[in-house]
């Protein structure tokens, strides 16, 4: 799994690329993998204000809808026009062509709460381990001896 250096990451699994006063925002590889096939993307309009920790849009897989939270506050400068017709771009290239919006940062302090690549990689690892622990707890209770535990390669 990729965690590109130079990006900032949120606990809700969004990434931010900061260039000057502009922040480009998308969802991480981990997020798109958890969601599965993305079939619809809802984006704000240019000029709208997004607020840190509030939903600014949504991504939908065939199964379910997930809100996408703004990792920083700011006014929307640009949205990724290819996503409405090609939502699967987020699955294919979450950190590149699958970017979602570009905002003008209203407060650079917002960035302080975000993780760097290394911290985010640890955070994701931790989340996976938590999932596994839950599974293993259950497996302990399970009496079926043939339950192998060679999963999660």
């Amino acid at each position, binding site marked *: 799994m990729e965690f590109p250096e130079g990006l900032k990451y949120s606990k809700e699994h969004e990434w931010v690329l900061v260039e000057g006063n502009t922040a480009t925002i998308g969802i991480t590889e981990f997020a798109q993998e958890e969601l599965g096939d993305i079939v619809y993307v*809802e984006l704000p309009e240019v000029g709208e204000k997004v607020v840190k920790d509030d939903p600014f849009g949504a991504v939908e897989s065939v199964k379910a809808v997930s809100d996408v939270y703004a990792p920083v506050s700011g006014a929307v400068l640009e949205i990724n026009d290819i996503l409405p017709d090609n939502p699967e771009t987020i699955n294919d290239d979450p950190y590149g062509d699958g970017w979602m919006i570009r905002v003008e940062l209203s407060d650079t302090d917002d960035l302080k709460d975000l993780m760097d690549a290394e911290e985010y990689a640890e955070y994701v690892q931790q989340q996976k381990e938590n999932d596994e622990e839950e599974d293993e707890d259950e497996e302990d209770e399970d009496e079926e001896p043939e339950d192998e535990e060679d999963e999660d*390669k």
Partner: protein
Amino acid sequence: MKRTPLFPAHRRAGAKMVEFAGWEMPVQYQGVIEEHVAVRNRAGLFDVSHMGEIEIRGPGATEFCQSITTNDVSRMKISHAQYNLLLNESGGVIDDVIFYRLEPDVYFICVNASNSDKDFAWIQDRAAGKVAAANVSAEYAQLALQGPRAEKILRPLTASALAELKSFAFQFADVAGIRCLVARTGYTGEDGFELYCNSGQADRLWSALLEAGAADGLVPVGLGARDTLRLEMAYPLYGHELDESTTPLEAGLAWVTKFSKGDFIGREVLLRQKEHGVERKLVGLEMLEPGIARGGYHLFKNGVNIGVVTSGTKSPSLGKAIALAYVAAVEAALDNVFDVEIRGRKIPAKIVSLPFYRRKAQPEVQGGL
């Protein structure tokens, strides 16, 4: 959470597991869309062992089954299956089920996982002193082999003439050396089979089928694609289109409701509803602008709430967003246009005919037996 005998196999295959009706089930292996397309074009194998099985036997079994169901059980020949409904006294659906007639007085019922305990308790209450009812859910695993190549994949694994099985017929057969009840039924809209075997042999059957089908592109398919496949066919899913407050007449299941067979639980209410007309009807919707209607979203016509969505997705086969919804009967005409409220926005949708998807004619020449 409960696990099917195939849980280790799903883990080996790298499935993403989710909770469904109290069971830890595979929602996807390689991806919902890829698995959906595999079933439409080639073949897919599903673990549906979470579904429950109830057996009813004894003299008078047919009469008893008639009294607790809407469909005409007496029309079912031995070795045939029938879609059927259990209703409560007010005509609401307790469950939608498949009956298999094993012998003149022996029926095997496949019920929804979420309802199996409820169904069994309900049946047992009514069976007392009349016929024997047994909850045999734990004894059986169920695999569904579905898709245009299902028959070709199954053929070399059995000496039985399963290719000759007609839709909704079944027979007992050895498949890969494992005794199965093999029915020509399914929940995908494609040709295919559902195979019941002893729980202890499920892993071997699963592996044998996957191996035999590999060259034909058979893949394991999770509940995610099972849902998109059934939704394209507008097959109801209990808890979405059906529950104890919906009647078969509202749900478009009048064809499963045989008033002529005599009395059954819920009949009086349904007769009245038939006479006076239903107040709401289940319809198919196609979204006219980008957006996906999901279960629970409301429908509006001129600002008035006239219905609610029960299931919705982006159809992988059609490339369109589709949904099933209950709407006021007076608004249930084809091509009628409404707004679906999707997270605060109103997106237009229109009523279309069902099913959304129709099976493709198979260009492949069907080989002999």
